[in-house]
């Protein structure tokens, strides 16, 4: 059984279509990440699932029950917000128990549940404090606890880590992953951070302009992006794109021609202009060049050392290109470097539709 199903969901504000005929089935216990740049409709979709926004068309099912017209509190969801949204005048305990009191739960049961949530999230010593006296990470834990005590089927996260500094964000990311392992609830997580998406998700839905571009496992999205947008969005630094064309001898980019025998295409490749994509980390350097199908020498125009790696900016076949080198290799700007390309690491996209070939 699917935990959450969104069927044919549309949302318009007047003439503006914010979400367009979305269909998503989320499995029981799955961690789904909605990923996209700002304004793509990912938070809007989450708000629709939560029942905080009325949809224009379609249906939403949670645990097989049609909740399209239900109030947020009746849907069996808990939500965690970017700004934490803790009630400032209530203590941590008050924040955790507010939802339960609204549901007129007996006091004994409330204190049992609050105690359990406090234990899981390790916020026991903070229960009597006001939110103002908590750090960002502690506040976010309380916000998660507020969803936890209600014993819901589905957790909804709306960019929960965006307000935290980089180090804390990395720590809480791991904690969230452990929490998911422990609770085994269905979780839907909205973010614009691809690292969060790749590390947390069982599946990622990449959204753009209110529609889903690709819904797949993280490695599938990374290795076989369905179109140029997804290819460009996922990966940091992002993919290099070049103009090319497919002819009798293979793929031609500028004055370079290489064989594409190893490329796994979805359909038979026609002789046509294409967009060629290659990830900076998939350009072979050093000892790997020997195994590459095509190799050449390029000039390192600019270096961006990042410790473990060095990002090298260069020109390749008339196109700007970046590639990644081992950070320990000594290299000067203006020096020549040998690089190699292999067809299995290339991504070919139709020049017009920008769909993967």
């Amino acid at each position, binding site marked *: 059984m699917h935990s959450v199903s969104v069927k044919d969901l549309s949302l318009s504000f007047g003439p503006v279509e914010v979400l367009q005929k979305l269909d998503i089935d989320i499995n029981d216990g799955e961690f789904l990440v909605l990923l996209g740049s700002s304004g793509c409709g990912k938070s809007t979709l989450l708000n629709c699932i*939560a029942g*905080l926004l009325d949809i224009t068309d379609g249906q939403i099912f949670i645990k097989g029950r049609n909740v399209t017209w239900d109030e947020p509190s009746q849907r069996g*969801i808990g939500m965690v917000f970017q700004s934490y949204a803790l009630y400032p005048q209530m203590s941590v305990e008050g924040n955790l128990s507010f*939802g339960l009191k*609204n549901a007129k739960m007996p006091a004994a049961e409330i204190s049992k549940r609050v105690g359990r949530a406090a234990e899981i999230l390790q916020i026991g010593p903070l229960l009597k404090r006001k939110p103002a006296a908590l750090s960002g990470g502690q506040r976010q834990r309380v916000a998660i606890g507020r969803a936890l005590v209600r014993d819901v089927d589905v957790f909804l996260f709306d960019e929960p880590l965006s307000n935290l500094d980089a180090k804390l964000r990395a720590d809480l990311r791991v904690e969230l992953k452990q929490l998911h392992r422990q609770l085994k609830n269905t979780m839907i997580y909205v973010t614009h951070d691809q690292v969060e998406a790749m590390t947390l998700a069982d599946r990622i839905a990449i959204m753009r302009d209110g529609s889903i571009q690709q819904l797949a496992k993280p490695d599938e999205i990374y290795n076989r992006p369905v179109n140029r947008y997804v290819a460009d969005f996922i990966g940091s630094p992002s993919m290099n794109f070049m103009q090319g064309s497919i002819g009798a001898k293979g793929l031609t980019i500028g004055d370079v021609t290489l064989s594409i025998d190893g490329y796994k295409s979805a359909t038979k490749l026609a002789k046509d202009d294409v967009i060629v994509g290659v990830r900076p980390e998939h350009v072979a350097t050093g000892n790997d060049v020997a195994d590459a199908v095509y190799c050449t020498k390029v000039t390192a125009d600019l270096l961006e050392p990042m410790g473990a790696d060095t990002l090298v900016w260069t020109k390749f076949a008339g196109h700007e290109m970046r590639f990644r080198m081992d950070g320990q290799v000594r290299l000067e700007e203006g020096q020549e470097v040998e690089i190699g390309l292999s067809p299995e690491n290339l991504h070919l996209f139709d020049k017009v539709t920008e769909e993967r070939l």
Partner: protein
Amino acid sequence: MADLAFKDACGPRPKKAFTLPNFIIYTTLTLLAIYYLAPLYVMIVTSLKTMPEVRLGNVFSLPQEVTIEPWIKAWATACTGLNCDGLSRGFWNSVQILVPSVVLSIAVASVNGYALAFWRFKGANLLFTILLFGAFIPYQVMLYPIVMILRDIGLYGDVWGLVIVHSIFGMPILTLLFRNYFSSLPEELFKAARVDGAGFWRILIRVLLPMSAPIVVVAIILQVTGIWNDFLFGVVYTRPESYPMTVQLNNIVNSTFGEKEYNVNMAATILTGLVPLVVYFVSGKLFVRGIAAGAVKG
């Protein structure tokens, strides 16, 4: 490091205590303060003088013989028409008008502002525009129609009629105040409360109002000063036995028979102005802060 030469800049920058710009600023401020405080000074010294001394006409001179007789007379025994119980009657009338008016108008306006800020129902903007339009209607235009309405519902001349009028006329600005304040609160808080199963009233009372102390204080100040200082509605919609303090003051000062008792008039005027004055002194800072808080986001 080389040795720090004594002449070189080192440590905190020295501040000059006396400069020309400072001199100009403080002189101007002092003169303006004197200009604005002079009438108050005249009122206070006059109210402490005896009538023979007032007749000498030296308005700026200090009283030779300090007396609080005028204050007692203004409060307790000054006559208006047949009543000779001074301002005290007006004071209690004003309190009876003020308290329910302030409570009622703030209670209704906070719900209005909450609904307009968070529950964006169909036509909310139109309703808000119409409500704001009410702020621009001059009182005089509405004066007689309201007399007719109050007469028809049987509240003309009743204190409660005046309470209702004050509440209605306070509604546009108070609703605007509350709406803007609530709009400035994070919407996620409202969403979280909805997910937590709180309804319309519970969100307002348990979540939002406890965070609204600054704006409630502003609303109280606005209403207390506005209603206390009102003269027009008070004189039109109530009967002489329930005239508010301002109307009572006017009647004392404008009594046509006998000698003008300037010392009593001054004392009566200060007494009437005391309530708003105290409110301003106690909460002046909060007032400015609250107005600013409501005004940032519209």
